[in-house]
């Protein structure tokens, strides 16, 4: 019986993979990790981003996800999910994304809510607003449709523990 279940599950998973790959080329999402450097040139300070190279505890990393509609159809119901990377802490207020509803989770993506509505139960059993450092996942709900050839980006900052 268990073996049959396993086979069913496998077929189901293969089916999912097939669906995903069928959509390949429709929306592409690429992720980058960068650090921000302050450059002083002619007395003016400018911020420059570059890929993460030297990364030590305390380094703030900017994670950016760019999604692009490469198909000939308009995409809808776009949601971007990003677990906070291991060994990092989400930086309060850093999530960005135009035309997005930004939600957070403190339970590895089981439940999402706006920052001000996200609650946790503390050690004494009292409910309180979750702290940004407790976030485990971020979700961007893109409120528009993405026409053919268009792209947008979402992201956040996190500090290496």
């Amino acid at each position, binding site marked *: 019986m268990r073996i049959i279940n396993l086979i069913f599950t496998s077929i189901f*998973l293969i089916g999912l993979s097939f*669906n*995903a790959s*069928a*959509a*390949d080329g*429709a*929306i*592409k*999402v*690429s*992720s*980058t*990790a960068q650090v921000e450097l302050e450059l002083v040139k002619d007395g003016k300070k400018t911020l420059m981003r570059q*890929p*993460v*190279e*030297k*990364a*030590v*505890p*305390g380094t703030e*990393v900017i*994670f950016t*996800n760019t*999604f692009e509609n490469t*198909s000939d*159809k*308009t*995409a*809808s*119901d*776009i*949601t*971007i*999910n*990003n*677990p906070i*990377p*291991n*060994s*990092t802490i989400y930086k309060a207020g850093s999530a960005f994304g135009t035309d997005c509803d930004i939600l957070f989770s403190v*339970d*590895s*993506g*089981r439940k999402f809510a706006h920052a001000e509505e996200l609650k946790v139960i503390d050690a004494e059993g009292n409910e309180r607003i979750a702290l940004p450092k407790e976030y*485990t996942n971020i979700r961007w709900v893109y409120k528009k449709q*993405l026409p053919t050839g268009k792209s947008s980006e979402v992201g956040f900052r996190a500090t*290496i*523990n």
Partner: protein
Amino acid sequence: MNGFICAVTRLPTRLIGLWALLLLAFAPCGWALTASGIVITNQASVDYTMGASPVFTIPSNLVQFAVDKKIDLLVSHATGLLTSVNAAQVDAVTTFTVTNLGNDAQGFSLLSAIATGDPAVGGGAPFTANDFNATNLRVFVDSNNNGTYEPLLDMATSLPTLAAGATSPIIFIVSDIPASLSGQQSVVGLTATVIPLIGDPVLPTPAAALAVIDTPNGVEVVYADIAGVTDGTRNGQHSAYGGYLAGAAVQISKTIVRVQPTIGSTVLSPVNSGDPALRPGSIITYRVVASFVGTGTLDNLTITDPLPADTQYIANSITVDGIAKTDLADADNANFTANLITVARGSVTTTVAAPAADIVIEFQATIK
């Protein structure tokens, strides 16, 4: 790797919840910094539909980079106070700690030094005036961390291993205090320098570390320390001052200032041993001088001097600062009782800048 990520994202939510709980349970134990070599991975995914299509889920590329080795440390004076010492004191200690602020265990070498001049720069109060130099500086680690320097136990002179985030046991700078003090304070500095753990490769110099071209997945050395009182930023070192405060002390000297023989002329100081004037019947005038060093107040100061053997005290011969005193234990605070000259002086306040006046006691005795 992709497969692993997919497998995790498809875990039943209950299992994910359990995993999260486990992570939270261990979080308080793991406040240490992320160790070097840990690979940080980010991967997003996008869900979308097209027309009446089902929801498609597309993962992003994996973004990965390894955490580099952060070298950072802090040397702190343990109390922020000067250690009270006396002139000629040996093994006077001032105490420090070293904290490893890096993300890996490291060793640290330790070096003590006399502050150069008055360390107004970097020498936060009270470690600002270097009036005299402590000598014979040594550095030892408090082996049982009881805060007391024990020469037979505390013999280690470096920290071979200090865990990431850990603070060392007490570090002692042990010094000797000169017998003659030219001032009140002595400031000494402790510098800790990062060294590799035993068996680990040599660390690159700060300059070499800066020149290394970083690779996202390689582990490079990053010097991140702040400047100490005698060292600069990002050099794998940190330093702090400690110091000694010499308290008030009294120093006593005794001389023969005059010998008056029964026949012949008076001999004045210096009177050499064997001088023909030193014979039975000669009257010797002894002088005891109490002088003051350091800064502070000495309470209940009493100076006593036993009459030398084979001499006979001459009654009422005591003078203090040139003023005659009686032998009785009375209000003049000087007496001769049971072959002992005693002068009581109560409290004496003295400073390095304005030392209290010497107390000069004289008395006479006849050689038997």
